């Protein structure tokens, strides 16, 4: 059994209205030290199998096909035993 983590974030240059609104809210709550904030998705997958390399390839494939929208999002995959 292995755990894979997928981080999906908006591509650089693509505007992130949600991130901007949360940033402004943090500033209005007094957290002025925050200079930028971007919001993305985080997925935890429980996967049967024990070869981290193979699993990582499969999860990348899943990300390319479904978990991320390649047109506006980047993704990163981490696999743990």
């Amino acid at each position, binding site marked *: 059994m292995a755990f894979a983590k997928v981080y999906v974030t908006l591509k650089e*240059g*693509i*505007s992130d*209205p949600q991130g901007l609104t949360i940033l*402004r809210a943090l500033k209005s709550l007094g957290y002025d030290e925050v200079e930028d904030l971007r919001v993305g998705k985080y997925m935890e997958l429980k996967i049967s199998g024990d070869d981290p390399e193979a699993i990582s390839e499969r999860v990348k494939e899943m990300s390319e096909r479904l978990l991320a929208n390649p047109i*506006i999002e980047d993704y990163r995959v981490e696999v743990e035993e």
Partner: protein
Amino acid sequence: MPELYKELGLKREEYEEIVRLLGREPNNVELGMYSVMWSEHCSYKSSKVELRKLPTKGPGIILGPGENAGVVDIGDGIAVVFKMESHNHPSAVEPFQGAATGVGGIVRDIFTMGARPIACLDPLRFGSLKEPRTRYLFEGVVAGIASYGNCIGVPTVGGDLYFEEAYQENPLVNVMCVGIMPKERLIRARASVPGSIGVLIGSSTGRDGIGGVSVLASQEFDERSTEKRPSVQVADPFTEKLEIEACLEMLEKNLLLGLQDLGGAGLTCATCETADRGGCGMDVEISKVPLREPDMEPVEIMMSESQERMFAICSPENLDEVLSICRRWGLNAVPVAEVTEGDTLRVLKDGEVVAEVPASSLAKGPEYNRPAKRPRYLDDVNTFDFSTLALPSDLGQVLVALISSPNICSRRWVFEQYDHMVQVNTVAYPGSDAAILRVKGSKKGLALSCDCNGRYCYLDPYVGTQIALAESARNVACSGAKPVAITNCLNFGSPEKPEIFWQFKEAVRGLADGCEILGTPVVGGNVSFYNESFGEAIYPTPIVGMLGVLEDIDERIPSCFTREGDLIALIGVTKNELGGSEYLKVIHDVVAGPPPEIDWDSEKALIDFLRLAAKSRVISSAHDLSEGGLGIALAEACVSGGIGASVEIDH
């Protein structure tokens, strides 16, 4: 740099015209500005000549085509502002964001005239539902429209939806928006007072949608920089909602001289069009433009199509109050331009001129008389021998197959994702022939419908377009309203192909003749060309958006059966016309014409009858026959009314 203009889609003679207008070669920024302002999308260069043939005048028409939206006087001191636009290509790239930004664009065209947006309708076309790609596009587009319309609090109350192989590679996402205002609130998109200030309101500016123009930017075109030029923008309905409220508040307090939204060609279009319409020039200081990315170049700033931005023009005395209202609504607002005498649009960066062009020359692009040639396919598809059709034995099965086919079945899955009730004006919900909205503070009501069967237009563009017009008129009449005026969105393939341009010319001719007869002028609209891939164009799809007016909202009639014991009457003549029918496609998988004929005398008589019958309350409901004919119309009226009917065919 002479070759550079080609990369920007400009023809040689267009480039030479620019050199003639300027008396010199254009620099990079100027070349970028002309290339986008003279594109088909902004200049309508291939369609202008034909569009002039449409009737645009009429008793209640306050403003026809030419500004952001048409304006119609419906009495009681109320004006209705409405228009339709397309966002086809972005939606094919990213359905959710493409469709969402499409809603944002058309809604801005409405409140930029001073009207509160009160309804949206979404005509959509997709390929076959059997294809996974179609399901992906369909689901994304509907969710995108829902996410935007629901957030800004404008109800999506209607639309139409077809699935045809012809749209497989090129889905159509058109959106119509309707607004109302007291007549005197009308504001024009013009800069007519030298010395007045141009204020840029809303989101900051990024490298969104600058597409081809990016080749002008000096940065070398490496892998890293493609990252910086996103082809898709993320819609921000929250900022748009703030802009609706802030702009309407500024207009109510009479603080603005002019207002224009930023759409295609971004700041360039907003500045040159307002200056041109106002007969003035303008100085634009781009160092003041709030940027989302650090090192943006002048050409990128002037051509950026970042969403949710407005350009307001006010007197220096009112500037402070304009800025404070925007601040109160949480909107960034910065003075970036000053209206000047003359006709010159000057773009400056830290006081240094980076572009200087005649504003009118940018706003009025070239004009073409494209060649047109009747397509050969028309002969093959209109000579089908209907007698060879084997009549199916079980007609019950035929009815079931038709009522569950994608072009006829219930649209509940779609419209239940749309908030179609917000603003508590909707009195006839989606699924009825026309959406009906009450007008608070008045007895009147509005009936709205958009219609077009692309298959009919493919078989005969002239007749097919008239069928679309007649059907939208019948739909509003079926609710008891009088058809008053239309907007439209003309979706076609490439105008540079004579066969396609012939389809366009015939469609516009049909629309012009029909509107003349019906007395429903065209008050605005949109043209979307180049809807084709691998040389295959979509069905010609001239979508008609009809505004109907009910003198008394209580005279409205539903489109479903309501009372037991009511008699059902079929009005109009039934001819043996199966051309282009849904029956032919679904049961026999044949697409062949000719489409049904249009008899305008009986269409007008029917519309007048329906209005009179509604006024004198002698009918309890009325439903228009369209795809699927009588059988489907009866089934729809029963299902939506939750009541049965027995019908004798041989009468």
